[in-house]
């Protein structure tokens, strides 16, 4: 049980407080409910570029980082399909500095041309470093548009194309900010050795005066059921061929998510899992194999990835993977297997509470899903899933719909 208190300011800002007296640091986490799914198809990568701009100075504070460092703090941020997450840790005596900094950039940014110009270049270098100048770096740039034809998950957080980032203009930046960076579209969590009254006082003082935004209309196009098999083979100068398969699966808040997550655990969580034992250890046709779920707010993907070994062909790889998938559709998993994956879930939950920062992040995340209190129901939701549920869900996903398959063919390149 993770205890917390929650409040909402008059302007709509949700606040979650968790007390942990064991550390001299305080963690603050802010989620803005905006991600790459909120971008228009000709300006992809914008939510992430914007995350960079949030460090380029706000209306009263020319540099975000300097005063934070002066107060012994450290921060970072990330953007994904659904939301943008900012976090910091700071010695507890300087907690007001965190409120001051975060409220000012929620109030208004400085919108400096120089910052936009530089951050465009920085993000382009990030694009190259992580997606283009890396072996297998472009896999999701290829796979997502195969799996999604309607829904905005078809592009990656970094964007479809470098040119979208190059073209981002100041007017668009301002209007994006006005739409999404408002207290009623944000969740603030604080964890550490703090007093509730003090946190509420500080929140009222610094965030209270910020006006709410206009209601955001969210109408994401629904991705139709995939009934056709989609395949793509690309040739790349990499040492090893690889296969990537993606099926559609339920959204994060759906009960079906838990069933699907357990399927991926049975297949590939840990060295005793089915795919590790059968595909890596026994068949020796893979050097790596993994099955995982994306956990997006809208319908996400169940992904299987494998790197091929010992001359295994695409057909061999598919056959071995499909064999494991069919087994889970045809036969109930063992009682012990279900117990094992549930034990892992329970342990992981405890391990995820080892620092104030991860507690603050998790609380804000669950508040976004619906309510912070859901964090305490997670284990029970997994434990409710039966062996029959897993078999039914597997049949629904793997038998009633078709996957997208990307085959990454290794070709020799000259160094």
């Amino acid at each position, binding site marked *: 049980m993770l205890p917390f208190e929650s409040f909402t300011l008059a302007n709509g800002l949700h606040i979650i407080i968790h007390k942990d007296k*064991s550390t001299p640091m305080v963690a603050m986490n802010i989620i803005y409910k905006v991600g790459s799914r909120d971008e228009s198809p000709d300006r992809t990568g914008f939510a992430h570029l914007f995350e960079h701009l949030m460090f380029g100075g706000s209306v009263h504070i020319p540099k975000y980082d300097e005063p934070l460092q002066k107060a012994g703090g450290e921060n970072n941020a990330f953007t994904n399909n659904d939301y943008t997450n900012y976090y910091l840790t700071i010695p507890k005596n300087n907690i007001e500095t965190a409120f001051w900094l975060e409220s000012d950039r929620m109030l208004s940014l400085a919108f400096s041309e120089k910052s936009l110009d530089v951050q465009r270049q*920085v993000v382009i*270098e990030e694009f190259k470093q992580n997606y283009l100048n890396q072996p297998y770096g472009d896999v999701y740039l290829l796979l997502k548009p195969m799996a999604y034809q309607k829904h905005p998950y078809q592009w990656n957080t970094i964007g479809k194309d470098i040119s979208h980032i190059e073209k981002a203009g100041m007017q668009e930046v301002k209007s994006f900010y006005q739409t999404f960076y408002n207290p009623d579209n944000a969740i603030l969590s604080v964890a550490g050795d703090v007093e509730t009254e003090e946190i509420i006082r500080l929140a009222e003082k610094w965030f209270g*005066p910020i006006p709410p935004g206009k209601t955001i209309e969210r109408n994401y196009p629904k991705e139709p059921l995939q009934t056709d098999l989609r395949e793509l083979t690309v040739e790349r100068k990499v040492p090893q061929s690889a296969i990537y398969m993606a099926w559609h699966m339920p959204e994060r808040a759906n009960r079906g998510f838990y069933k699907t997550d357990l399927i991926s655990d049975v297949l590939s969580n840990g060295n005793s899992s089915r795919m590790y034992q059968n595909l890596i250890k026994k068949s020796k046709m893979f050097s790596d194999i993994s099955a995982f779920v994306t956990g997006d707010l809208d319908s996400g993907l169940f992904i299987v990835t494998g790197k091929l070994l010992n001359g295994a062909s695409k057909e061999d790889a598919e056959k071995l993977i499909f064999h494991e998938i069919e087994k889970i559709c045809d036969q109930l998993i063992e009682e012990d297997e279900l117990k094992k994956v549930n034990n892992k879930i329970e342990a992981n939950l405890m391990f995820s509470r080892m620092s104030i920062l991860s507690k603050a992040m998790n609380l804000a995340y669950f508040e976004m899903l619906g309510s912070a209190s859901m964090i305490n129901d997670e284990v029970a939701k997994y434990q409710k899933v039966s062996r029959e549920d897993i078999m039914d869900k597997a049949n629904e996903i793997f038998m009633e719909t078709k996957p997208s398959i990307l085959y990454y063919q290794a070709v020799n390149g000259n160094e």
Partner: protein
Amino acid sequence: MSKQLQINRSNIPPHGTPVHLVFEEPDKEILDNGLEVFLINAGTENVLRIDIVINAGSVFQEKKLTAASVGKLLKEGTRGYDSSEIATLIDYYGAYLDVSVTKDTSTITLYLLSKHLKYLIPVIGHMLMEATFPEEELRIHVDRQRQEYLINSEKVRYKAMLEFNKLVFGEGSAYGQVLELADFDMIERNDLAHFYKRHYQPSNAYLVVSGNINDEIVGLLNQHIGKTWQPGNSFEYQVPNKGMVGIRKKFIEKPDAMQSAIRIGRPIFSKKHPDYNKFLLLNTILGGYFGSRLMSNLREDKGFTYGVHSFVTNYKHAGFFSVSTEVKADSTEMALKEIMFELNRLQTEKVGKDELSRVKNYIYGTFLRTFDGPFALAERFKSAKNMGEGFLFYKKSLNEILKVTPEELLETAGSYFSPEEMITLVVGKVNNS
């Protein structure tokens, strides 16, 4: 509006009373075989982390890949448990078992719920005493590692890391060993068995337990490790060969690279050197945090790179300093120039009061931050213990850092940043024609 006018948004709010680093040294117990166990009782969750640290890092191996292969194969078979039995046991109890091998040490780490210790500790005992290194498992492991190596070799960052290590410590030294493709064909089961027998001994190891400590723990450890893990043939700990710098400039062309990986640096001292704390501060100012001079210059001002950092890397008997970045290919030359410019600036201009106090405060925050939670405490303790120190080391180190003056920094930069001492490595595109 009126409410907004009452608060001053332009100035940083006043700081409260500083909090201090306070922690007790861990309790120490000694098992029947003389093995030291350090107990760090902290945290709110009923979990444990057990670290078994053995002086069996790669510097002690006679053939490359030996130490790492021994570490990874410990869980692939022992007398009494085969590979899949170990995996099933660990997974069934929701535990994590990891073996990490660095230059100096091999560490077996187990994360588990406290209530499961009695089910899991016997297998850990077996791994320490009765690993069998099955031929078949070794082959699977080597095949997978070879592929990982080949993939990593495509990354300029990885290539630069290996090459730089070779430049700093020189080829042929224990610390300068660098993996090559042919090494994967040379490693044999006998190498592993020999290394294991020689180095995996209680007199060459210690144990750290962190988390929710209860009365049962020491008894269980003693039963499954203390009473059974007996010393083998005695051997003397020898200080490994640190090597020396040969070449100072190296450019490795990768014609299709979109970015170049740059490393600039030099060998330095280990943590116990009197200049260590001053150098740590200097390094932070240069490239050790997000607001550093290198980050401000190369990223925030010029947009050459997604990130640039400088590091102080310490081993037990050696260390090096390095600046590390990947930059836009056509800005390689400019980036090299700007890095040298920042190194020079620290040797010629005193660091301003404002910047110095900001960096000191940042370091103070970092010290507090790295002690957050029981597992973090274990990490910090091991790092100190490997040099023969305890938690007190950090308190002393922080106090010294907070006292360093601009004059001392200038002097330290002068002693360690001179251009002729620097090693420069570029992997990628070099427009030096």
